[in-house]
């Protein structure tokens, strides 16, 4: 180092050691240090060391004891955090929770799917039940219609018209019957709905003697058909009339209620 440079180097070293070097001078000092000899470096360090000893001239005061306690608590927490971080870095147990969460996610999706499928199955089962019920009803209806058609297809059929009486004058109906086989079809229209403890009852009047031909109730539809098996009287000449009365549920041996409809065979 040239004499002039060394002079400036020592000046900068002094300023650095005393803590009063600005940024530009610090850069210049750095440049000198890069090419400094061991002796020059030693001088630099001597000045820095001397300056660092300045506080030794102060009368010392001990800090409060609680500062040490607080500091060591922070250090313990810091060490624990580092240890935990280190453990995670060394043997990464982290994927496990991630896998767990993945399984939880998959499980949740399955649960949702199962609920959805169950709901769908329940809905479909309901639909199937409803459709099955409709199918049964349609089959019954078809069977009934087929039986009615069989009656209508008979070689010998008789038709007796019935009219509505005072309780329900707008009602009307007919009986189509096969005197040979003893079967008949009853068709009624405009009969009012009846209470649940009541039934309509069909009577065959033989002479003056009413004979029950069966009970029925009506749907809330304009007309209803019923098949009558084993009509008690097969000879048309013996039948004086057909009549429908409103009777207690299940029917009665002899008519007790009001007569809603009646008709006589045309002989």
């Amino acid at each position, binding site marked *: 180092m040239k004499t002039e440079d060394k002079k400036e180097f020592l000046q900068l070293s002094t300023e650095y050691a*005393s803590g*009063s070097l*600005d940024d530009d001078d610090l850069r210049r000092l*750095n440049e000198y240090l890069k090419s400094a000899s061991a002796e020059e470096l*030693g001088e630099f360090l001597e000045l820095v060391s001397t300056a660092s*000893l300045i506080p030794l001239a*102060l009368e010392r005061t001990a800090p409060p004891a609680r*500062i040490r306690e607080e500091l060591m608590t*922070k250090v313990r927490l810091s060490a624990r955090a580092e240890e935990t971080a280190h453990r995670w870095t060394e043997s990464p147990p982290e994927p496990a929770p991630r896998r767990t969460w993945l399984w939880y996610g998959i499980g949740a999706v399955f649960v949702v799917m199962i609920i959805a499928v169950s709901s769908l199955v329940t809905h479909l089962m309901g639909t199937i039940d409803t459709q099955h019920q409709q199918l049964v009803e349609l089959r019954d209806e078809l069977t009934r219609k087929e039986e009615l058609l069989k009656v209508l297809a008979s070689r010998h059929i008789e038709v007796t018209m019935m009219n509505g009486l005072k309780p329900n004058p707008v009602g009307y109906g007919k009986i189509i019957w096969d005197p040979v086989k003893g079967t008949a079809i009853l068709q009624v229209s405009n009969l009012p709905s009846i209470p649940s403890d009541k039934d309509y009852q069909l009577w065959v009047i033989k002479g003056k003697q009413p004979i029950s031909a069966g009970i029925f109730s009506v749907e809330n539809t304009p007309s209803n058909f019923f098949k009558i098996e084993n009509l008690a009287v097969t000879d048309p000449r013996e039948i004086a009339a057909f009549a429908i009365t409103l009777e207690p549920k299940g029917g009665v041996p002899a008519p007790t209620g009001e007569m809603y409809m009646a008709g006589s065979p045309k002989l």
Partner: protein
Amino acid sequence: MFLLALIQAQLARNEEDYDLLMRTIQRDQVAFARLYDKYSPLIYTIVVRMVQSTGEAEDLLQEIFMQIWNKASLFSESKGSVYTWIVTIARRKAIDRLRSKDNVSRGASLDEDSTLAIPDPAPKADPLLATISAEHESLMKSAFALLGEDQRTVLEMGFYEGFTHVQIAERLNVPLGTVKTRMRQGLIRLRDHLKAGLREDRG
């Protein structure tokens, strides 16, 4: 050569601080606690002198030692002793605090991150000290007492308040050259007094 001889003589005494700091790097809390016990009275005294507030000084003391705990691995033997490194951190922290309080820019020197381009291998340990001892304290007190008022003032303004030479010149209303001369002469006088004292002890 005196300098190198002194370095060799003091290396052994420097080992304790060095060992404590190395163990601190290994996260040895007992070693760190010993380092604190050893240096906290001095660092606390420096900081109180600088910020002029015991409350702030307590706060800073914790910050300084947490930095030592967290950045012990940044210490480089080639750039000074453990003592110098710790004092440097303390001064920088306190100067930062002063700067934030009064908005006055202060010196950039003595950066604890050691940005100076000191080549390796450099002389190991500080030439004038290895560890703080009652001997050093006594020498420094007597050396400081020998300084003239002018020299002591500029050294204190630089060391404890972090002012640059220009700022000191402005505040004292003296030429910049005067400040530089007082600073250089004061520091060299301190150094020479310490050298002489240590030489006598080992003589």
